[in-house]
């Protein structure tokens, strides 16, 4: 399993974590290239079915990251998102999705170093879970996560 490279779908808020990823890049901070980023206007935009869809299409992990509570560009988007995450996280944990597959974080656009640390950790945790075999479609009629 040592050559297994996980595929991770990352949902980043445009106003913070996406900026942090940018800053990490221009600061030449090294982080693993295992995730495919989907840019959102706010974590409040994230419909839980996007996360399920990513898993269903074969993603090994999902990482959602947005602004720190209190710092939302739209005042309260991430507060509302947080309540949805609490429920979805609990639902997936109860139904038997390994805890290491789904990650949430708050990373501001200035926190390039936190971004690097969390990115490395997320990839390692998903790698430890191994390929996603239990929570994906048997036949992926449509494009699988590239």
């Amino acid at each position, binding site marked *: 399993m040592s050559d297994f490279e996980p595929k991770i779908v990352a949902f980043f808020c445009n106003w913070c974590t996406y900026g942090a990823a940018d800053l990490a890049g221009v600061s030449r901070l090294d982080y693993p290239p295992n995730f495919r980023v989907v840019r959102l206007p706010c974590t409040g935009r994230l419909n*839980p*079915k996007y996360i*399920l*869809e990513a898993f*269903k299409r074969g993603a090994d992990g999902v990482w959602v990251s947005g602004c720190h*509570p*209190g710092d939302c560009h739209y005042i*309260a988007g991430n*507060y*509302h998102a*947080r*309540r*949805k*995450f*609490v*429920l*979805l*996280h*609990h*639902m*997936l944990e*109860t*139904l*038997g*999705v*390994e*805890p290491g597959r789904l*990650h*949430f*974080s*708050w990373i501001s656009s200035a926190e390039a170093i936190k971004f690097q640390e*969390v990115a490395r950790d997320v990839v390692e945790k998903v790698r430890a879970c191994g390929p996603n075999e*239990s*929570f*994906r*479609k*048997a*036949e992926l*009629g449509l494009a699988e996560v590239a």
Partner: protein
Amino acid sequence: MMSLEDLIKKIQEAAKRALKEGKAEVVLGYQAGTTPMAVAPLFARTEGDCDKLVWSNFAKTNLSTYLPELKDKKVAIIAKGCDARSAVGQVVEHQIPRENVYVIGVPCTGMVDLEALKSKEARPVAASDEDMATIKLRGDGWETNIAKEEILRRNCKTCICRTPKMADEVIGDEVPSMTPDDYADLKELAAKSPEEKMAYFKGMVKDCLRCYACRNACPLCYCPVCFVDETRPQWLGKSQDEMDTFVFHLLRGFHCAGRCTGCGACEAACPVGIKVREFNRIMEEEVQKDWNYIPGLDWEQKPPLTTYRPDDEADFIR
């Protein structure tokens, strides 16, 4: 306790009164079904219609499912506790105007689980009769009585709202509530490994035909387009893929978070006997634990996912 005949008389009187006093143009209630052990919905518009109204231990559907479609009319609904809670939920979610719904609450001692009944009496039933506590069945050359207590639905055993006190009027004698659900089975399940949990829930839904009867029977499922019917993009495949079925049940349960009143209409509607409410219970427990919220008890309450607190706890977010 009031007899079933007296209760039916009171329901008919209340329905006629609601029509006469202009509280409603139509009264939603139950009428006798065409087969044994069943009732059908009745939309009573005249006094004559009201004479057909009945009450039964087999009234397992939730009539508030019809309310959003009738939101422009003044509707009175004959509601047991869980139905009344669903109507409250639809009002606080702004699906029906408060002034257009008049809830006639009927204290309820629980409804019969047909699966449990079949396990006690497997012979084909030709006719049924009932009073408040006993189900009387007749078949070809046999007759038997079953105590209702022994064949109650699971959700009725943990009902917290047997008497809908928030209703506009309550008829019949008040009935004390049951001990609330302690979610012991979910707590036990939480200690198991992810593989065991996944196998348990996949096994639970393996017979699902995806007929969506659970969705159609549910008073919460009023979206104009359900996620299962969306095609661009298509979130759920149309085949019998195990994962599509699993995600359907997962999301259906998720969408009921903080809204499900445990009326059991989904399970009663399921043609293959899937315990679909298990998914709702997962959310029910979490919503109660995190935000101390129980849906459908108060006309003024604010649904938990439409609001927030700056100090909401979420220790899994780093």
